[in-house]
């Protein structure tokens, strides 16, 4: 593109007629995607920013109210509650699932019989549709008839009410979230297979123990993948919706009312699209803030070939 006659500073390099044609042609060929992106993603995003400063119920014209939706958010106890629930689920759920999927991935990375079968078994739950999983877990965790409490009873523990009990509903959701560790497990597996064998050989020559090999070879080499899984974990858990909508609908007593669920209710049940748009933008800012924080503190991530 930039190849061409040298130009004076401040002016754009001139394109030949052919180059211009090719540019247009290229744009024409990507236009289905471009149009789709602009119409179905970019426009709604920009529009929602505008709507967040309006009273808008979708069927009548938006009316400008300035910052009122944001002020209402600040004063809405359910907004705070839903944010708290979301952060709770993220703060407990992400570390637990990051750790568990890493452990499973390392176990499945060992040379053993039926390796492929086990990998399939552990990944399989991630393929089951979210709604089916949610319904399944609702019965697993049923206080009286569910297998979880029946197993607990077998060892003499009176199981809690799980999803029916405000104290236990969030831990129950974290538990059900572990069903999906297969997804990040597969990414870890790919990462583990990219760790060069010679590093382990060198460590062995130096007499490193298994723990030292893990601590000084595997984890540093895997750290970019851990960072990736962490970021994906944050994004998905901030947007958690489907399983909770199906399993609890936010109850009991708002104990599982997560951010996305409350946003959805405002948009489509209360017809408060302006308020919901404001919620979406606050979530965007929170997510971006969390990610900036993660990147700023990502000194622990080791990129091979970068000093």
């Amino acid at each position, binding site marked *: *593109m930039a*190849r061409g006659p040298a130009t004076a500073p401040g002016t754009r390099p001139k394109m030949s007629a*052919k*180059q211009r*044609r*090719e540019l247009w*042609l*290229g744009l*024409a*060929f990507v*236009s289905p995607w471009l149009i789709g992106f602009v119409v179905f993603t970019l426009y709604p995003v920009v529009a929602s920013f505008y709507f967040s400063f309006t*009273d808008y*119920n*979708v*069927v*009548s014209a938006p*009316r400008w109210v300035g910052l009122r939706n944001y002020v209402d958010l600040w004063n809405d106890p*359910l907004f705070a509650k839903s944010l708290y629930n979301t952060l709770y689920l993220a703060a407990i759920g992400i570390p637990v699932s990051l750790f568990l999927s890493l452990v499973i991935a390392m176990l499945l990375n060992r040379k053993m019989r039926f390796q492929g079968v086990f990998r399939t078994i552990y990944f399989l739950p991630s393929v089951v549709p979210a709604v089916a999983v949610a319904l399944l877990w609702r019965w697993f965790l*049923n*206080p*009286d*008839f569910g297998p979880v409490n029946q197993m607990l009873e077998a060892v003499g523990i*009176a199981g809690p*009410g*799980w*999803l*029916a*009990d*405000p104290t236990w509903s969030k831990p129950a959701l974290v538990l059900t979230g572990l069903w999906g560790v297969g997804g990040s497990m597969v990414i870890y597996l790919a990462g583990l297979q990219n760790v060069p064998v010679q590093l382990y050989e060198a460590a062995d020559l130096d007499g490193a123990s298994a723990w030292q090999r893990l601590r000084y070879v595997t984890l540093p080499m895997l750290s970019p993948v851990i960072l990736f899984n962490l970021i994906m974990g944050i994004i998905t858990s901030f947007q958690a919706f489907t399983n909770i909508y199906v399993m609890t609908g936010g*109850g*009991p*007593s*708002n104990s599982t009312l997560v951010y996305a669920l409350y946003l959805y*209710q405002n948009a*489509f*049940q*209360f*017809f*408060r699209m302006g308020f919901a748009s404001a919620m979406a933008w606050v979530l965007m800012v929170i997510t971006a803030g969390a990610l900036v924080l993660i990147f700023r503190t990502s000194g622990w991530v080791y990129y091979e070939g970068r000093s």
Partner: protein
Amino acid sequence: MTNGEHRNAIPNDPMHGAAGARNGHGAEARSDRRATRVTIQHRRSLRLWLTTWSTVLGLALVLPTTAMAQTEITFWYAWGGSEGQALQALVDEYNQGQSEVQVRSSFVPIGDGERILATLAGGAPPDLITVWDWMVVPLGASGALTALDEPLAAAGVTEADYLPGIWTYGSYQGVKYGLPTTLNVYGFMWNKDVFAEAGLDPEAPPRTIAELDAIAEQLTVTDARGNLRRLGFFPNVSSIYFYAFGGQLYDPETLEVTIDHPGNVAAMEWLARYYETYDINKIRRFQAGWGDLASPYNPFYRGQLAMQEGGQWEVAFTRQYAPDLNWGVTTFPAPEGGRPDVAPVQGSFWVVPARATNQDGALDFLTWLTAPEQSARFAAALANIPPRQAALDMPVYRETITPELQTYIDMLLTGYVYTPPPLPVGLYLSEQLNQALAAVQDGTASPREALETAQRNVLRELEKYR
């Protein structure tokens, strides 16, 4: 793509690569010719691209116009299975009975508001759709629905044709935005076998709140661990008791919101005692084990819940899922000085979107569909109650009436009928009531405080519509 990639692509191109090689003389000449060919190919691609897109756009523009030319109306109904078939049979009959308007119907579940909002906000909504009752006034007050007053007057339909208290259902500030499809009314149901088993008179349901409390306690069973095995009663639809205790959610004359009405507060205090007596967490735990309501595992059918609020659909449901169940239905118990004849009505509506392309056709079909004969046949198929008096008297409906269904109908005809408040805030109000209940259940607010908060929030939300 860059220049280089295009150049490299040409020799491998099965269409043009061979031609390029044949005509080529020297390296220089070949490169020039290639450049020309590149341009030609670009022109062809561009033409192909233009043709494709203009075809797509052209079709998109032409298709709706051809649909309009055929005096067709599009109609979304929200019933599947045998209920949907019954409605489809009515549609077919209408289509065959005349040739001016043809109804093209499809089954579209209502769900939450998403689909309805999307279709109404878009440029070309269907001509007739089914929505929940709580959507009618919010959508109507926003200008998304056609007012039905004039068309109904032209068709000679008046308030007297509808059951008492139903004409204003779906109206806001004197404008009628929809017609009820059928009516659902709640009654107080009790399990006669459980009554007899506990030594109670199976023909004597509680008539007062005090009797209800006593019987509920007597019928409740807990196991050795203190977990519930049977609940005598659980007040599920809280607004019923607001009205039974003499309260109201809004003033039907002035449309003023009255969530903090003293009657409501008294009812909420009674509810709070209930949650405390039976421990709301134990109740929730027990409820988690209840089966699907539309199945033989319905807790009332299985005797896990001895008394319950249940609508007239239970007449059909029990016939299907619990044919041996021995049950009765009556009006709701009320405290002394309260309302002993509360008839809570809910349902869905037919509405004509303001932007519908064929409103006249839709109104003609709607008038036909809601006429007594059709209304009676549809309500009979749904085991619901038709909203019109003349439909109730139709033989096709009368032959479906059992003594239990008659109780529900009597409640509608003679009781204190109340419907979801016809206010533009829709579900926001009922959600505020849920939040008030949650606060009382958690003990974070007194019944009065909780209702006052709900009242304040709803008033604030209503300001948006003034």
